């Protein structure tokens, strides 16, 4: 059983995410943010809620968390997230690449504000080691 390439292009149902002040403060302390406000990579929290959580739970994809390493991460910000706002996060399996024992799963997650405008786009590439 390897990763199911037929799932390339699959989008998971959008997740609603509230940017809670207490969680932002805890995150900011953990990464030693010096600026106040919402740290740029707080986008990871809704990204995980919409992306990683879904791909791990997807029986058709065949992804084992124990075999996953994080290979690359990219963010493009239109603006910082704001404390108290609600965003939707929608994750798509952009690509599944590689042959043999090392595969690359790239997830693209778009965070949108209530008006539908894009706030942050995240692209996460997971390295998946498969026994072979």
């Amino acid at each position, binding site marked *: 059983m390897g990763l199911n390439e037929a799932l390339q292009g699959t989008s998971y149902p959008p997740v609603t995410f509230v940017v809670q002040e207490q*969680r932002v403060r*805890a*995150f900011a*302390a*953990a*990464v*030693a*943010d*010096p*600026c106040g*406000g*919402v*740290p*740029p*990579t707080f986008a*990871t*929290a809704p990204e*995980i*809620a919409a992306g*990683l*959580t879904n791909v791990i739970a997807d029986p058709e994809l065949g992804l084992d*968390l*124990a075999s*996953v*390493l*994080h*290979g*690359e*991460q*990219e*963010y*493009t*910000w239109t*603006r*910082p997230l704001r404390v108290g706002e609600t965003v939707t996060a929608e994750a798509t399996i952009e690509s599944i690449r590689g042959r043999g024992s090392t595969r690359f799963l790239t997830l693209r997650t778009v965070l949108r504000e209530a008006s539908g405008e894009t706030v942050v786009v995240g692209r996460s590439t997971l390295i998946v080691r498969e026994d072979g």
Partner: protein
Amino acid sequence: MSRRFEDVTVGAKAFEVSRVVTREDVKAYADASGDQNPLHQDDEVARAAGFPGIVAHGMYTMGTLASGLVGWAGGAEALVRMKVQFRAPVFMGETIVCGGTVRSVDPVAHTATLDVWVRVERDGTTEWPIRKSEAEVRLA
């Protein structure tokens, strides 16, 4: 306030900040980010994966690098894009050094592109948990 375009020099080191990685911060990161992968919390799981003990989340390391970056740039609103490669693990008790150098500037868009990295000294050699990575910031 955002850093001024006039104050940025191509080739110059922009920032370099050090931080000791602790279990407490990594646990706090797991809870705040929602990434509860046991590789980052359970030493036995980490050892089964071939590591000497738990490993910091790559995103903890990227987040700490981003903190150094926005501290230099003058705020989170200055950050346009960031792309990193995770190339080595980070273990508890280690000191990570996060830094960036100005690669280029765009005088029309008033932006700068930086090479960014995270290094750690381990057993007498330099490891690069983040390398060949870049960030684009907006300047005033």
